């Protein structure tokens, strides 16, 4: 499934010398160019300062990495859990399963809440997306897509549309109609086109722009109306598995995590990678911003969840236990940011105290891997999606 095709070979006239030959499709400053291999060699040798060789560049990057560690280390005067010792411990939580949403025919892969705090959209391996009313368990809409493994789904801010994507390498937007009899699949509009599976998608502040992450190692920002690519984000060296948009007050950035074990923070306007964190030792399955926008958490196959502060530019907490050996697939914060809900491949959801670093409780109930956990927009409930074909609402 993780098939990377960074340099896809095609045949045709070279953009530089005009000769027909096998072409390397590469990106220079986010612009795709098709050069034959000879012209790529020539281009790479241009602009090499005298004496600049592979070894000198490697040495410089090692030095820079060391400098980066030193700079980060200088500001580590105390650990987060030490500062948090003076905070009261969290009282026992009374969170239980309040609803079980049954209806999918196969593994539920993704879930997202609507801003109205009661509707959720879920997508499944069976190729369907379902919009549920979480209060009444009513299924309001169902759309069958031509592909299986719909790995990503998102609700539009207006509540009038949903986006979904997966193994079809596309992300499509489906407008939700109030007319029950209308065939929603017919109105589906393809917006994003990637060269590998779509792993995550989210609308930006309006219904007009869509941000996607893909197994082809890139993230991209699309205009929904025209389907045009507005900005692409290159920097990951393997599949990107997850992305999250910064909460609106803090501006135009988003964080992504992937199979290269890195979490990158990007500027949406310039496409620039502004910060990078690589303390995980296995694939990062999920990234999520802290409600204030100054930090984010990540969940990984290495059975840990980690918490990174953006202004201090470092990891400030690791949520792990020797007894937890299964990978974490998804994380989300409670409204105040004090609780971190993490779904694991051992069928449980662990609730961590973000500040103190200890586990507060375990939520049991699912009968297979938990694929996604999402807290409702007003913080009253948690929705979890699982490979046991159901979703659960916890409150």
């Amino acid at each position: 499934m993780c098939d990377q095709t960074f340099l896809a070979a095609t045949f045709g006239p070279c953009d530089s010398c005009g000769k027909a030959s096998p072409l390397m499709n590469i990106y220079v400053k986010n612009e795709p160019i098709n050069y034959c291999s000879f012209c790529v060699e020539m281009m790479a040798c241009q602009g090499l300062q005298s004496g600049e060789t592979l070894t000198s560049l490697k040495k410089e990057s090692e030095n820079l990495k060391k400098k980066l560690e030193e700079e980060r280390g200088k500001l580590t005067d105390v650990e987060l859990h030490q500062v948090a010792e003076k905070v009261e411990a969290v009282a026992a939580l009374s969170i239980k399963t309040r609803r079980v949403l049954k209806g999918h025919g196969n593994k539920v892969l993704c879930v997202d809440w609507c801003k109205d705090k009661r509707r959720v959209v879920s997508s499944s391996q069976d190729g369907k997306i379902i919009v549920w009313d979480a209060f009444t368990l009513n299924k309001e809409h169902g759309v069958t897509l031509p592909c299986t493994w719909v790995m990503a789904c998102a609700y539009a801010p207006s509540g009038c549309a949903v986006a979904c994507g997966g193994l079809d390498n596309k992300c499509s937007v489906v407008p939700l109609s109030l007319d029950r009899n209308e065939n929603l699949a017919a109105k589906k509009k393809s917006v994003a086109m990637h060269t590998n599976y779509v792993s995550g998608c989210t609308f930006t502040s309006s219904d007009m722009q869509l941000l996607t992450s893909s197994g082809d190692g890139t993230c991209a920002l699309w205009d929904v109306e025209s389907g045009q690519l507005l900005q692409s984000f290159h920097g990951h060296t393997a599949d990107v598995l997850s992305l999250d948009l910064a909460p609106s007050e803090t501006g135009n950035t988003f964080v992504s995590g992937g199979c290269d074990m890195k979490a990158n923070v990007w500027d949406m306007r310039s496409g620039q990678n502004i910060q990078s964190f690589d303390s995980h030792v296995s694939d990062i399955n999920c990234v999520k911003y802290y409600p204030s926008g100054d930090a984010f958490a990540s969940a990984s196959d290495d059975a840990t969840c980690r918490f990174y502060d953006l202004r201090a530019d470092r990891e400030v907490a690791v949520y792990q236990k020797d007894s937890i050996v299964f990978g974490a697939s998804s994380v989300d914060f409670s409204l105040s940011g004090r609780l971190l809900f993490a779904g694991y491949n051992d069928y449980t959801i662990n609730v961590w105290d973000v500040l103190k670093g200890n586990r507060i409780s375990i939520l049991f109930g699912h009968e297979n891997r938990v694929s996604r956990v999402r807290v409702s927009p007003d913080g009253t409930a948690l929705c979890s999606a699982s490979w046991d074909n159901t979703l659960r609402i916890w409150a």
Partner: protein
Amino acid sequence: MSTTNNIAQARKLVEQLRIEAGIERIKVSKAAADLMSYCEQHARSDALLVGVPTSENPFKDKKPCIIL
């Protein structure tokens, strides 16, 4: 061919690291204090943290009334 890829990649890496090394950072103690104050400010409205009475939470089923 692999050498040119490596040079281009190495150059990109060096440029990226230069950008990252140059950003402004604050001390962990200040960052931690800000995170804690955010949590405290919003703790009261966090339903999953403090719990809300059954009557107010739309997901918690109200106990059926017994009419005597």
